[in-house]
């Protein structure tokens, strides 16, 4: 076999493998979506959105769980967004180039990939133990801690994309840095900042592990933030592992709801970012 032929064969095999690997990856995305649609659509009905989670064997919906997930995600973002935004601003502006900000950036990147169950244990120790009971607030704080690194990261990246000339122009007119940041940088980076928020919502709305020891669940309709509250991820966890057919069906419907929401948010975020920065992705 000539050397040239061997090189050609190797090339063909290698490239063929890469096609196969990609097909495998796409196959699993399709397989998961298909399973979710197959099992989840069966339970999609008005009842899902009007009734609370049932006791074993009875009929019911996911209203209380949907409400709880939305409320805790919103509170989580309301706590996390200002902190993340300000910290990202520090890294991009006030602390730019300093050793401290390099350390904070590194720690933030580590937190970004830290196991979420650890965050759950942490919030259990600092909130649930002193308060003496599980609560929606504790869950929201856990979600906020997971959202913060995402927001810090995107805020810094997006602020860095704003052209230096715009900052200089503002400074030349005598504006203090805070005025430049709030009146020039934030508006210029607005859609990028919104992207960061969308991504963090997508990230925390499916998180389950941090809720296990902070809010747990609530079989009933509850709007009390100081009490256990139903939430979609926990309901999916609990119901999927149950032996009851209708519970399992609700779990699939909940799984479909969460996945579609997150995929929609991720796609929306992508549009938001490509609309402004004109970046490839």
């Amino acid at each position, binding site marked *: 076999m000539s050397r040239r032929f061997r*090189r*050609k064969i190797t*090339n063909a095999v*290698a*490239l063929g*493998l*890469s*096609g196969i*690997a990609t097909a495998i*990856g*796409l196959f699993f*995305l399709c*397989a998961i979506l298909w*399973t979710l649609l197959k099992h989840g659509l069966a339970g999609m009905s008005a009842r899902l959105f009007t009734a609370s989670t049932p006791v074993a064997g009875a009929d019911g919906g996911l209203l209380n769980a949907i409400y709880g997930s939305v409320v805790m995600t919103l509170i989580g973002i309301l706590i996390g967004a200002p*902190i993340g935004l*300000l*910290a990202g*601003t*520090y*890294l991009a*502006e*006030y*602390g730019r180039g300093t050793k401290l900000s390099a*350390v*904070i950036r*590194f*720690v*933030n990147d*580590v937190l970004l*990939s*830290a*196991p*979420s*169950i*650890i965050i759950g244990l*942490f919030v259990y*120790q*600092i909130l649930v133990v002193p308060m003496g009971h599980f609560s929606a607030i504790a869950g929201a704080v856990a979600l906020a801690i997971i959202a*913060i*690194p995402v927001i810090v990261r995107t805020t810094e990246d997006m602020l860095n994309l704003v052209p230096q000339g715009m900052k200089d122009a503002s400074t030349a007119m005598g504006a*203090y840095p*805070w005025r430049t940041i709030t009146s020039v940088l934030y508006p210029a980076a607005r859609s990028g900042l919104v992207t960061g928020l969308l991504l963090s919502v*997508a*990230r925390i*709305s*499916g*998180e*389950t592990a941090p809720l*296990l020891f902070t809010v747990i669940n609530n079989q009933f309709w509850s709007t009390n933030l100081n009490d256990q509250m139903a939430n979609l*991820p926990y309901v999916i*966890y609990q119901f*999927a*592992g149950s032996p009851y057919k209708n519970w399992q069906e609700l779990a699939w419907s909940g*799984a479909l709801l*969460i*996945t579609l929401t997150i*995929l929609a948010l*991720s*796609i929306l975020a992508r549009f938001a970012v490509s609309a402004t920065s004109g970046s490839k*992705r």
Partner: protein
Amino acid sequence: MSVAVDRAAATLERHAARQRLREKIFAGATFVAAALVLLLLGGVVVALVTAAWPAFSHFGFAFFTTSSWNPVTEKFGALAAIYGTVVTSVIAMLLAVPVSFWIAVFLTELAPAWLKRPVGVAIELLAAVPSIIYGIWGLFVLAPVLQHTVQPWLIDWVGPLPVIGKLFQGPPYGIGVFTAGVVLAIMIVPFISAVMRDVFETVPDVLKESGYGLGATTWEVIWKVVVPYSRTGMVGGIMLGLGRALGETMAVTFVIGNAHRISPSLLAPGTTISASIANEFTEAVGALHSSSLIALGVVLSLMSLTVIAAARFMLLRLDRRALSSV
């Protein structure tokens, strides 16, 4: 006249003072927020170690070397959980790294322009699917499939082999260490391939073009130019994936079987650190049981934070903007 000037100057001074005050407040607020991020990591470590202290001091070093986990007699050892965590992650990495590498190659070097973006986005979406979805899918779809196809095949053909055969003996349970590893692999493939793609895209075109100019095939350019150039970044991406696999909770909890024991067979049920915590924490009655579970959490933090920090360190050298996916 001078009164008017004085008044104007005073107004200006007041205005400037107000501006300076606002500047101080705003700058202070950003600093406090940034410091909070730093304190968060410290707080996590301190809170967990404090809560785990009773278990560490009660069991001493034996906590890491024994595998009995008995809430009734209050004997707790972390070995089975550590073993499960390591083994599931190793299985996941063995399966996921080659596939991720090839996907990244496809996305950067092979795919035609019109296919690049949709496939890239699809892979990234797969990374955005929450882990509980992988868990329930793994339990209801993947585990039965593995139980009826892959596992009997492994038992029949690999089981009789010397040494390695020990890993694939016994009945095909469906759920177990092996299945957990496979689910983890499916979960981290999109993640690792997205990082690798970003890393590959930092290779300057001139380098690749000089490879092609010398008559190299596409594969030779990839293996001899792209890979060596991006080695550190690739390893960083792989380790980031490992960090994820080590700490993953929900996807594993559904399919691992939750048995605190070390079986020679990979097909048998086992447990991981995160799965043990998720399963038992709210039901732990004794103080020592809770403390031991948190001690498991400390072990997990130590393992995953070390791996993640090393990964981030390797990725530091790259332009952060190139790493859009992490």
